[in-house]
């Protein structure tokens, strides 16, 4: 692999990073203002990952949906798989923040990021 230019997305400084594969196979990163950028660049060229977020339908709650996210970044190629899974489920209120709504998908859990209280229907 030759050289790749990336923009670091870890913080708003948005450093331009150059990643090069050394003859020995190790990766060399230039342009990072801090070590987090170096880690990001190495991860990004070998196994890019992202946090995925969406909403999931809820019945019997004070809100019709609950927002969710993966509790860890998942491989980019898994994003659609996570989205399909969140679109296919429906939860019952109450839902608490941090509650796992889907367990162990692409190496992460999908957790609730909003609270939905139960409302008593008449």
């Amino acid at each position: 692999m030759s050289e790749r230019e990336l923009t670091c997305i870890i913080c708003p400084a948005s450093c331009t990073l150059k990643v090069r594969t050394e003859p020995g196979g190790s990766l060399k990163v230039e342009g990072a203002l801090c070590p987090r950028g170096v880690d990001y660049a190495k991860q990004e060229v070998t196994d890019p990952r992202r946090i995925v977020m969406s909403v999931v339908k809820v019945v019997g709650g004070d809100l019709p949906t609950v927002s969710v996210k993966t509790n860890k970044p998942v491989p980019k190629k898994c994003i659609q798989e996570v989205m399909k899974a969140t679109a296919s489920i429906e939860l019952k209120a109450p839902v608490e923040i941090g509650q796992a709504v889907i367990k162990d998908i692409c190496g992460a859990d999908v957790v609730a990021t909003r609270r939905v209280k139960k409302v008593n229907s008449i």
Partner: protein
Amino acid sequence: MLELNYDTVIIGAGPAGIAAAIKANELGLKAVLVENRDLLGGIPLQCVHPGFGLHYFKEDLTGTEFIYRFFDKMEKLGVEHLLKSHVHSIEPVAHNEKVVNVITPQGVMRLKTKTLIYTAGARERHVFEINIVGDRPAGIYTAGEAQTLMDIYGIIPGKEIVIIGSGDVGLIMARRFALEGAKVKAVIELMHYPGGLMRNIVQCLQDYDIPLYLGHVATKVVGKKRVEKVVVAKVDEKLKPIEGTELEIPCDTIVLAAGLVPNLDMLEKIGLVIDPYTRGPVVNEFLETNIPGVFVAGNALVINDLVDYVVEQGELAAEGARYFIENDGIPTTDWKPVIRGRNIRFIVPHYVSGKRDVILYARVRQPEKNVVVAIPEVGWKMKQFNVRPAEMIRVKLTKRLLERAASVEKISMEVIPGE
């Protein structure tokens, strides 16, 4: 008619209003928080993406997670609030008395208060404000409307989307649509540089192969019942459309992310002085406006990109309200104006006393590389690799630093090219 007395009435329960209400309670003020919608929380309640609270909580939270931490605090303190309550008007009675007329499900209420904290946020610019001609079919939404539909109600408003505006709001909405399986055909940006942060260009557009049209303007909407296409043209240096460069982009939905304007009509009716650059009020270091006892914080003060600063402003306004009540008005002093220097588009607050710490918020006019941001009167300087209009500059000046400017009549911020 119900009449109630308060130390402070807070209008709008987004992060600014909630933070102000919590602080006011902690300071021992009798306060009430009034909200239009049937939900507390403002914009963050419908932001499902991370990027909130990095400064305030030192954690990367989603908008929803961020705002629920404040809900929990409100509940613990027993912060008084009204939902589905629309503030209809404000009557300035005296320097230390205002009457807030509120229409609530229980009827009209008159809230008599010593001070007022106005945190009603911003409104989104609509089609008629950005010179798009043509049909007015269904399928045109503001980013906020689309976000409410998707992320509160779970309804995706369309299948083929064109987004107008490349600020962070537009970029984040582009990703939300793409994630939900809609095809985002284009993000259109008038300027020759993107409005949002580079990291959002990468993780919202490049990740999903969404094309960004810089230096383009949407000139016309076409569609009978529903949007069918949008006509886009290149612009020249003066940002005027160039004839013959038009192209048509078929789509069923247009999302406008063309900027926010502080929502201040109600205060303008009682004589609020506006800064033409922020389109928010002119304020002193307590965020008090020209109307004594009326404080403004959050997006109603200045369009913020970070909720952390919004919360900080809400808390400061509550401290200002307490100081006002203790002294029966903010004591008069030799206010020093804060002046916009080279490449500074705006700066808030507009007046400082030099007698206490202040936080200045500013934006640059144009992106620039390798510069120094400086406040020469106090000898303060900060090297920056990049300054961009999308990123608000926040500077805290301590009282000690400000004392260096004791003999000068103003202070100013400027951006100067570095070596």
